[in-house]
């Protein structure tokens, strides 16, 4: 202990305190503060970068989910549209068939009516012509029959015969 006290140099103690305090102040100003700030900034930077990366990942996931949803919707819509189109097509074909059938029926009916009336007029004309023809024939026959007396008498007799029979 005596050796320790004897070894103690006040001058060295004095210089040590001065140098150390000066060193502390200088290092604090020119080294520790900038270093620790830089390190802190870097750590903050890393943290925010990690955070934003995480956020971006989440957003990406959201986006993908959205995309998936959109795709699904589009698919569903397409499906629906196709179905609708098919229905419309079927309906159109059915309608057209119906229309065509009624039209055809109508045309057939008209044709039949026309044929009927043609037939009727033709028959009527035929009847008329047959009547006039038979009248002419009858006139000619009567004229011819009534040209001699014998024949006229014969005819009267024939007719009388008939009447008798009746």
């Amino acid at each position, binding site marked *: 202990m005596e*050796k*320790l006290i*004897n*070894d*103690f*140099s*006040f*001058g*060295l*103690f*004095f*210089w*040590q*305190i001065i*140098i*150390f*305090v*000066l*060193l*502390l102040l*200088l*290092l*604090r100003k*020119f*080294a*520790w*503060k*900038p*270093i*620790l700030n*830089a*390190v802190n*900034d*870097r750590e903050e*930077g890393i943290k925010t970068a990690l955070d934003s990366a995480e956020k971006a990942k989440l957003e990406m996931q959201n986006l993908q989910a959205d995309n998936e949803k959109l795709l699904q919707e589009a698919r569903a819509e397409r499906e629906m549209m196709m179905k609708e189109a098919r229905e419309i097509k079927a309906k159109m074909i059915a309608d057209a068939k119906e229309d065509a059938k009624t039209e055809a029926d109508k045309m057939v009916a008209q044709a039949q009516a026309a044929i009927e009336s043609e037939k009727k007029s033709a028959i009527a004309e035929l009847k008329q012509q047959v009547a006039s023809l038979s009248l002419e024939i009858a006139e000619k026959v009567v004229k011819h029959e009534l040209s001699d007396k014998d024949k006229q008498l014969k005819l009267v007799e024939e007719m009388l015969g008939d009447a008798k029979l009746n």
Partner: protein
Amino acid sequence: MYFCTDFKDTVICSKMQRKTLVRILSVLLFIVSFSGIAQEEHAMEVKEIAPGEAGSKTKKEEIKEFINHHLMDSHDFNLFGSTDEETGKTHHYGFPLPVILWDGGLHTFMSSKFHHGESVAESNGNYYKLYHSKIYKTDAEGTINYDEKHHPTNVRPLDFSITKSVVMMLVVGLMLIWLFSSLAKSYAKNGSIPRGIGRLFEPIVLYIRDDIAIANIGENKYKKYLPFLLTTFFFIWFLNMFGLTPLGVNVTGNIAVTTGLAVIVFLITTFTGTKDYWKHIFDPLGDGMPWAGKIFIYIILVPIEILGLFIKPFALLIRLYANMTAGHVVLMSLIGLIFIFKSWIGGPLSFGLSFAISLIELLVALLQAYIFTMLAALYFGFASETHAEHEAHEGEVQHL
């Protein structure tokens, strides 16, 4: 000593037990440090008592003197010296340093005036002589009077010389400023990415911040203490490392230097101490106990607490001093063995041993810087702790 009766007391007790543990550790380390010194001195005595042959005695004494001289601060920067065999004169190679004395007035001169203690230096009518690395006031003839224990009785003027240790501290200080300000600049230049030597030092800085400062002082208050802790760590470490170089400076093994560091630690602890810190010293059991019960315990407890205030930094200063001095003594003794053995076996053997010890000393240099910083941080942590934080912290621990 402690009475843990209810829950609140348990909290206080665990707090006190932690502090007591630290105190016991401090005292133990303190005792170990002293026994280290004692052993050292013992070893030296043994060397002295066993003279061996007549020829080797002078050699041993020479080595012992050399080691003692090395451990002390010196007024000139001696790189190496050689003794002329014929004339017995010693030639020193190095450079002188300025001597600054306060002796009824300022006396300044270069240490070359002393001629390594061989002649008397005169300054403004006063005469000074260097004896065992210390300056004594003498007359023109350089007489030194001794007491019965062979200690000089001459007056010692106040010595503010720029000694070898001061020069080394300045060198280390400049090195630290250069090193770390360039590291700080490299951050600005490279966008917060360290380059070169900074890659080595940045993890250490971060380690001190995270595992010493934040771990012991806490997230909220560590910033105030961090510059001191960083400076202390690197200052001690670098000086320790310089002590291992052939320059042979033993700065951290000098009691004045370690005292300076410990005084600063003590001042910081004392002046940043919170109300709770002082309350803990003067009222360690807290309000959970009636004053009538406390008063008898406090007769013993409070003086111990107050003593603890001084023992803590004292243990710091003795530990660093003793460890570094012991390391130097062991290393130099082992190197000295080479000159004593002077044989083909002893030489390599002591070389190998001193090489191994050097490796251990490399570790010790780092370890002592770490321990000093760590304990300083621990003391700062005690000083800056407030009651609320403490309770919260204890609560956390208990919930775990």
